[in-house]
């Protein structure tokens, strides 16, 4: 029963790991701790809601929502962050800007979709049942996609020209100018990916649970705990810690109640920051 719960936990909250990767990519590139990333998960979920309730099939609606969020993320970057970063704004200014953006976006959607939580209309079928825990086709698909996206990210970063440029820009913007790499293009691309990843996480979380304007905000602390304990800016750390924390949360929820999951995340966060600010998996002397 417990093992089955762990598996199901990975299916239901696993997509959050993809969100953590998106958050990490942005931090890696621009050193922005983007709190508005919470809304990068909520907004596409509303896109999905609007598209599915107006009759579109789930899968095309899902893909459209993700892409729309990607495009929106790029626009938001250019309007709100690019100027500040170029001006050499401090970390604090960037963070507070992202908080302002987060609240503005959240209440904007709160104003349009007033009222209680909504459900995403989707029909699922139970694929198989083990020990009274049943698994739907959507859950299995989500898990498969989560791992596929993780591999795709690895492939993107290590095997493609764009991935190399992303890592190059993250390492040294001045050297990129010398090599003639266009940093704005890389910036746009990374925010696009971050938006799409946020969309993936947000849409699935809304589908498995319910949709309300606080969807993203309620998960952002868990997300930040993953990202910080994985070593800020370390994509693989985020992947590993993401899976570990998702499982820990599932286990804690299994034995106690749901609220304690977040409390465990907070404990991990504060312990990481206090003891190993470079991330739990970091080794000494390695960046």
């Amino acid at each position: 029963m417990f093992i089955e719960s762990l598996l199901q936990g990975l299916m239901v909250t696993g997509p959050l790991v993809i969100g953590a990767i998106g958050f990490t990519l942005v931090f890696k590139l621009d050193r922005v701790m983007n709190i508005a990333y919470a809304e990068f998960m909520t907004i596409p979920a509303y896109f999905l809601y609007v598209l599915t309730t107006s009759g579109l099939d789930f899968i095309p609606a899902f893909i459209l929502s993700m892409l729309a969020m990607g495009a929106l993320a790029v626009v938001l970057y250019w309007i709100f962050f690019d100027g500040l970063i170029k001006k050499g704004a401090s970390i604090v200014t960037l963070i507070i800007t992202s908080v302002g953006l987060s609240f503005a976006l959240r209440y904007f959607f709160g104003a349009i979709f007033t009222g209680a939580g909504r459900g995403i209309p989707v029909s699922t079928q139970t694929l198989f049942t083990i020990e009274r825990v049943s698994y739907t086709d959507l859950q299995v698909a989500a898990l498969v996609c989560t791992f596929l996206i993780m591999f795709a990210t690895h492939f993107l970063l290590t095997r493609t020209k764009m991935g190399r440029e992303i890592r190059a820009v993250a390492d040294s913007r001045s050297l990129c100018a010398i090599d003639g790499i266009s940093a704005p293009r890389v910036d746009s691309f990374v925010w696009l990916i971050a938006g799409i990843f946020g969309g993936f996480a947000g849409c699935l979380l809304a589908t498995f649970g319910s949709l309300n304007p606080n969807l993203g905000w309620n998960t952002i602390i868990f997300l930040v705990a993953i990202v910080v304990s994985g070593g800020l800016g370390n994509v693989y750390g985020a992947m590993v810690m993401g899976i570990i924390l998702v499982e820990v949360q599932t286990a804690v929820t299994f034995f106690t109640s749901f609220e304690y999951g977040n409390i465990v995340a907070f404990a991990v966060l504060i312990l990481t920051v206090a003891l190993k600010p470079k991330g739990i998996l970091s080794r000494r002397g390695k960046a």
Partner: protein
Amino acid sequence: MKILEVKGLHAGYGTAEVLHDMSFDIKSGGVTSILGPNGAGKSTTFKAIFQLLNIYKGKVYLFGDDITGMATKDIFNKYNVSYVPQEDKFYPNLTVDENLETAALRTKKTKEKTKDTLKEVYDLFPRLLERKNQIAHTLSGGEKQMLAVGRGLMKSPDLLIYDEPTGGLAPVIVNIVFDIMKEITKKGTTVFLAEEKIGQSMKISKEVLLVKNGEIVFDSSKSKQKLTMKKVKSIYM
């Protein structure tokens, strides 16, 4: 032909002027060295050429074009020039292979030609080939310098500007690096380097500039006297 010309350049960081009225030019072919001890203003000169800091007065011409005020990125995209800075010589979290390929990313060369250049670089530094897939910041000091040289060569540039190619290297490797610099010029690349090792650099250089406190104190192309070590000592010691 004048490849690079600097006229009456005043430049510095913020409001602190570091270079005072610098003028010199680099002619095509051979090695030109800008020499002087640490802190004389060599790196600052290079940064000023590539518009990486504040220029208060003066002009920079590259291949005859005025590039004063041009964006750094555009200079490198437009002209076949390589620059190896003193800090940030390579990307610390990319592998050796990736570092080299990134250096040739924006050239007009074909893929095959880039591959040939890559092979040439590996022939020059077999150690780099051994460590092809190693992350750059884990290399040893000498290997890092080899990687930086390699990156400078990847574009097969007409002009290679190199800030301290031998900094932090063991004496044996220093000689090899200087030999390589000479070797490069045989293929038609003009090399302009900054060095602290005045004596050794003089031996491989066609022309020599000496800087002290942000001013050029000796220019071999304009001076009738020959530069001797004695004179260098009288200037700096």
